[in-house]
């Protein structure tokens, strides 16, 4: 095979002609979100009493930590151009499995955690396998499995919570590092690092992106698209499990209602993070940092608005308006920069 013997001059030219310019860091979604977070953070710090109080920062970080992982769980499937309506149902199932393992079976808690995560991944596998095998859209499959998983959980637990967990659980959820940082935030950061590694530095992560962007092309390039899609769902299930276990720590118990009826309460945070973070809904592009910043932004807006004490029934309207304002500011920044870049 002579393929490797490129003409002598080529590599030198390659180096010259391609000084990879960072495609405008200032134009990225991540920068935009960061700017918005700083902007609104400053605004709330001056307007809202107690926004910067240690307890509020702690609570903010803890809520954001869980929302970020929920968002990442959805992101893992959005990569394929699909979605996972069952994130909440899987999450609750995983949490209840952990609670059952620890409380009823008397397993040591690390095994209980593993059991919960394992169930999350397994349910994700069921979703992925069904989607790939039937060729139906993941929307409809996960809509059905959402009912099935959640129903099975309710049936088996009779909606009873598990609260005889080791005190370490609740202590972990309530601990404050340095007065303001929740250890849950550290878990989230670890998860983010792992995902960045996956999508940036592994063949599997790249295959997920390529398969998601254009399955036909990926298939013709030797990627086993079906298998990769199943893995995306498994990853999603696993992350849903992580988020749920974080909530178990936060609530000090595994409770069936922690994600609401059918686990639907998770859907909003699940979509908000990725979508604001620049993950394409038709697949093939992700941003782990963006998802995290998106989730953080929304959590912060909510917290700030609550502190501002605007008419209690109107808060949701204001949240919507702020969200709209945020994306508009971002849009304006982008078109401003784009114009300047060209001039």
């Amino acid at each position: 095979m002579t393929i490797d013997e490129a003409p002598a001059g080529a590599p030198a030219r390659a180096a010259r002609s391609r000084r990879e310019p960072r495609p405008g860091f200032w134009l990225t979604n991540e920068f935009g979100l960061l700017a918005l977070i700083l902007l609104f953070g400053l605004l709330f710090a001056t307007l809202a009493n107690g926004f910067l109080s240690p307890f509020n920062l702690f609570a903010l970080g803890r809520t954001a930590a869980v929302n970020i992982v929920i968002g990442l769980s959805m992101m893992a499937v959005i990569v394929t151009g699909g979605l996972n309506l069952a994130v909440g149902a899987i999450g609750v199932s995983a949490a209840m499995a952990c609670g059952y393992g620890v409380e009823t079976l008397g397993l040591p808690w690390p095994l209980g955690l593993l059991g919960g995560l394992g169930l999350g991944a397994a349910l994700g596998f069921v979703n992925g396998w069904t989607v790939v095998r039937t060729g139906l859209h993941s929307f409809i499959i996960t809509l059905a499995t959402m009912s099935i998983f959640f129903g099975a959980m309710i049936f088996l637990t009779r909606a009873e919570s598990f609260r005889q967990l080791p005190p370490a659980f609740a202590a972990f959820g309530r601990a404050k590092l340095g007065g303001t940082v929740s250890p849950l935030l550290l878990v989230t950061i670890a998860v983010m690092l792992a995902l960045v590694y996956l999508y940036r530095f592994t063949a599997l992560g790249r295959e997920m992106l390529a398969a998601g962007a254009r399955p036909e092309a990926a298939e013709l390039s030797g990627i086993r698209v079906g298998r990769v899609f199943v893995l995306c769902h498994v990853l999603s299930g696993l992350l849903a499990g992580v988020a749920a276990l974080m909530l178990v720590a936060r609530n000090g118990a595994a409770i069936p209602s922690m994600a609401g009826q059918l686990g639907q309460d998770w859907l909003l945070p699940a979509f908000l993070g990725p979508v604001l973070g620049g993950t394409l809904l038709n697949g093939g592009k992700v941003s782990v940092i963006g998802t995290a910043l998106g989730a953080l932004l929304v959590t912060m807006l909510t917290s700030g608005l609550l502190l501002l004490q605007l008419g209690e029934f109107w808060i949701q309207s204001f949240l919507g308006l702020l969200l709209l304002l945020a994306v508009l500011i971002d849009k304006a920044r982008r078109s401003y920069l784009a114009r300047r870049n060209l001039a």
Partner: protein
Amino acid sequence: ADDSRIGLVPGGPHPYFAAWDQAAKDAAKDFGLSGADYKVPQKWELSQQNQLLESMLSQGYNGFLIFPGDSVGTVSTVSEIVGNGAPVVTGAGCLKDPSEAAFCLGTDTGNSAYLGTQELLKILGPGKRIAHFTGFLVDPNTQLRIDAVAKAAKEGGATVVQVIADIDAPEPAEEKINAYLAAHAGEVDGIVTTAWVPAVVAANALRKIGDKRIKMVGIDHDEVVLKAIKDGFVSGTMLQNPYGQGYIGAFALDKLRKGCTVKADAPFKSNALTAKFIDSGTIYVAADKVDSYVDAMREKTKTLLASFGDTYLACP
């Protein structure tokens, strides 16, 4: 005291709690609080309620009357709040023991369902078949209600032929209840409902099919239900006392902040969730009392309040 800022927080937006708003205002005035506010989470979501509570704590609220979003899930939040020096009383619904809430002031959901069923059986007589319409299964109270209705039915010699749950939203409630009545109206003699929306929808459904043979006992004070009672389509409803919960809750929280403690030997009742339960009052309202039930409730609140401090609190 003048530095008491009491927050009254339900689980989400719901007409049941509207009375808390007035109760908060009255309590602030009557007891000289520096503030008492009714604050509503935007949705019935545990996490939303938690976030609201955390935020209120940051804002300097220092006493809370809370309807727990989840009887176990809210325990941890409450203990965090208490850890920050703000006493908590649960209202309308209870936390499952052990918890750090001072006590629970509300309606014994199970008992209310039990009594309601008994009222229904009184009207129907023995050996009849009843259906039970109730709320979300994820709410552990739902299981309590199902059990209570079953128990009362068994004692009264009736059979529960069907339980329809998960109908806390009007659309599915309408669909399922109507479908049920359409197919099985002939096979059932009575209906007991133990959640707000099913009560409203079932009352309307009975009015629609115009069937006064089927007797129904509802719950809560929705206008539709009250009107149906007047018109004879519904036999009666189990009323609770939300205003009293809000008013007395705010009173007690203020006392607790002043250094009062809950008496160890207070005559608490106990229910399926907690041994520190105070009944804010449940009454069965039939057609004869529809117009006067508000006075009855006021009376109940007044008597409860009069002896509340002495009965339950030890003050310096």
